[in-house]
């Protein structure tokens, strides 16, 4: 009996020692819009950096900032502009740019909307697709929860102070919005351009389709920066990782995933 207890204690000590062993560890936490891209970066980056453990966690932009303030992560992923209050405590590095695509079901004949149309849909002023040349079906609005970086960016560029209709369905991740839009012929939603796939159709805005080029030359109306938020000077490991993201390998991967690398000048003013 006593012997087994001692064995248990030894095992636990060993386990604790092992858990502490990797000295260089990096934790990224925050926006679920950036998370899939960050996971790809980490996957590619780790090939040459075996000793480094990098963890990527979701939770949302605001949670990402909280995580670096509380010290549970070294890098916060933020998919919206930092608030003035946040900017006092952390600083930011643009790591990619993204467009927000307005998506509908692939069978929806509507292909082009103005920003005003989108706003009227989301306030509930336009309640039926017929008004926009679509089928006679009531519109199912799909939105993100309050506090989401994508929602904050969407509200900032589309809603202009008006509130989203209270009957809009609320989904708590980009994937859930896409799933909902992809399965409902009358739905409309907004998701990160990099995550648009064949299950949904991205609309042209004022005649401009969301593409790499239209985001690059700013003719597409809904763009936003992807930020890494940091507190104080980044650690050596963090600095090298960020440098890699900005380097040729990182930017190639960013493009391959459907996003755009940052402009050479910081793109803070873009929102």
């Amino acid at each position: 009996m006593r012997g087994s207890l001692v064995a248990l204690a030894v095992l636990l000590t060993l386990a604790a020692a092992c858990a502490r062993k990797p000295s260089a560890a990096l934790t990224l936490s925050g926006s679920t819009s950036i998370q899939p891209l960050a996971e790809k970066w980490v996957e590619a980056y780790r090939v040459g950096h075996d000793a480094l453990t990098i963890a990527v966690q979701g939770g949302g932009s605001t949670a990402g900032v909280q995580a670096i303030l509380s010290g549970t992560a070294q890098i916060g992923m933020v998919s919206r502009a930092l608030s003035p209050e946040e900017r006092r405590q952390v600083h930011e590095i643009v790591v990619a740019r993204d467009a927000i695509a307005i998506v509908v079901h692939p069978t929806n004949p509507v292909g082009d909307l103005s920003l005003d149309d989108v706003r009227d849909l989301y306030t509930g002023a336009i309640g039926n697709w017929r008004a926009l040349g679509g089928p006679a079906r009531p519109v199912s609005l799909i939105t993100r929860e309050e506090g989401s970086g994508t929602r904050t960016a969407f509200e900032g560029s589309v809603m202009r102070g008006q509130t989203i209709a209270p009957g809009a369905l609320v989904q708590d991740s980009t994937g859930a919005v896409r799933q909902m839009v992809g399965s409902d012929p009358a739905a409309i939603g907004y998701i990160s351009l990099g995550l648009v796939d064949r299950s949904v159709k991205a609309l042209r805005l004022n005649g401009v389709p969301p593409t790499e080029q239209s985001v690059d030359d700013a003719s597409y109306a809904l763009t936003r920066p992807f930020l890494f938020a940091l507190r104080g000077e980044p650690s050596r490991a963090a600095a090298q990782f960020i440098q890699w993201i900005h380097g040729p390998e990182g930017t190639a991967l960013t493009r391959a995933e459907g996003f755009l690398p940052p402009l050479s000048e910081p793109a803070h003013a873009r929102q």
Partner: protein
Amino acid sequence: MRGSDRYVERTLQLVAFSSLAALVAITSFIFKEGAPFVFRVGLDNFFSGDWHPTAHRYGIGYMIVGSAVVTGGALLLGVPLGIACAVVLGEMCNASLRGLLKPLVEILAAIPSVVFGFIGIALLLPWIREHLGGPGASALAGALVLGVMILPTIIAISLDALRAVPRSYRDASLAIGATEWQTIWRVVLPAARSGIVAAVILGVGRAVGETMAVVMVTGNAVQLPHSALAPLRTLTANLALEMAYSTGEHRSALFATGVVLFVVIVVLNALAGLARRGAGASHRKKAPRVAALTATHRETEGATPR
């Protein structure tokens, strides 16, 4: 040997108390974070229907309605089905059929709620959208999914209650010429009433507390559901959706939502406990499970009906 026995006993005691400590810690934490907030914004604001955290308006009234609506709907489906299932399992089937059904009910209880939610999204929502209209994600979808999810709770506890009814009741009823169905309907079910009430209350607790599946199928719009096909948001969904993004006051508001949920669940559990104790008293024993253990003993003695 003796020394090591005492050692084990102490360790187990410590472990047992640590689980209690977790409960105390959770309770005090939720109340510490949430309760002051309720009084700061005022009860009338807090229970209003105006929820706009980014505009500092925190009213959870519509979510309380939402929780009540889906729970009520779930009971409409779950209670008749669950009790019927318990009656079949306890009174009307032979050992081999029971050997088949009981494990199935247990498997139902073991299915993770996210799976229920996923099935809801993949099958139920499109079906509702096509055949009944609306966006699919709705009060109805939530009620149907929850109705199935509370079945195992209701079946298991109702079955306990039925088992606790002394054999002599049934024998007496059959002996005076009642049919099997009359015996079940007029004698066994009334005798097991308190236990079945407890089963229903615990089912309510399960439905109110369920989160993942509800987030996935109810649409989470903060509004008064004007029909069964309209989306709504429950208290648990509110916490799950917004906790990750919340800071400061918003976070406190979510903890306050947690306080309301906590109070509701504690009250429900207390009610269920009272009902079960009532069940025990009616057959002169403390709890159905104890009753099952002592059943043989009582039968040799000959139990006295009320």
